[in-house]
């Protein structure tokens, strides 16, 4: 099959005072963050979920189970890097990714370029192939109120040639 394939990914975590907020591998100064065994990076998690969906091979939890002791203290950006290789070995290349993070109480815009740089590095694609956006949710819902942060990602992959 030589058709392009798309994948959709999503993740959300509750936010806690005093914990680190890591998105796209960027440590963002914030009064709240994720309390998880990995760094809780919902953006990287959503991207892995989307990539897994694009190649119809499970989801984030299939490849990186939460109860895996190796996942403790892990960096989700490293997971994304690993999964990028996995996608390549499965015979696909990433054409582009488009993602957005939803959080209403922390300014994310100043950190978007660093997130894009990290993601393009992890997936070994050009910066122009990576889009990251931020939404405040207009104060609505847990993300808008700042009690949770979520991310959505859409990816396009294409069978490798040659």
């Amino acid at each position: 099959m030589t058709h392009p394939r798309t994948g959709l990914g999503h993740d959300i975590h509750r936010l806690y005072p005093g914990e680190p907020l890591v998105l796209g591998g960027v440590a963002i100064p914030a009064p709240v963050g994720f309390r998880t065994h990995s760094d809780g990076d919902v953006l990287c998690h959503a991207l892995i979920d989307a990539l897994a969906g694009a190649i119809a091979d499970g989801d984030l939890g299939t490849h990186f189970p939460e109860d895996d002791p190796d996942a403790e203290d892990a960096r989700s950006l490293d997971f994304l890097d690993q999964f990028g290789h996995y996608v390549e070995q499965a015979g696909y290349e990433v054409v582009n990714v488009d993602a957005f993070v939803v959080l209403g109480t922390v300014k994310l815009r100043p950190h978007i370029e660093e997130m894009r740089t990290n993601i393009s590095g992890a997936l070994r694609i050009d910066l122009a192939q990576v889009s990251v956006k931020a939404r405040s949710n207009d104060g609505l819902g847990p993300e808008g109120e700042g009690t949770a942060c979520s991310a959505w990602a859409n990816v396009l992959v294409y069978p490798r040639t040659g």
Partner: protein
Amino acid sequence: MGTSPRCTAQDIATELLVGVGTRIEHSRAVANQAATATDLLEEPWGASLADAAWLHDLGYAPVLAKTGFHPLDGARWLEEQGWRPEVCRLVAWHTRAGTEAKLRHLEHELAAEFSPPPELAQAILAWADLTSSPTGQACTPEDRIAEVLDRYPSDSTVHRAARSNSSQLIADARLVETRLRNVKVTDQ
């Protein structure tokens, strides 16, 4: 705030930490402990340790909290205020802060901005911190680590860092206690 290096470390800690839980009581106890061990260090580290003991938790002051990682927030502010590099370095790396920095993805910033202090200086500040309870009572390093692990949820960053660091912290405390015993024996 109007603080400057002309203010004493105690003045600054009092101004910024009073009302932040019992941080000032804890800081006073850490300063008292550290004062008994400054002779183990050569200058400028002895005097810097005495100041850093008062100032090590300054980053918990709400007005200073930027990254949420209190060793770095405190050290950055002290540097801005013109404090000696040795004091800033001790605050930045106190009680093996490098582990928590890594969990927060801030280890590169920490290492780039502040060089780690000499091992013995780090060990003494860790020992002083670990032998002072949150309310300023004397305690053992083991009890202090257990108290931190109990106070913070198991999946919190502070708990994970303390759990990961516990062996190193106990080793720090033992090293300092041995050095202090040797000094007393020599003095007799």
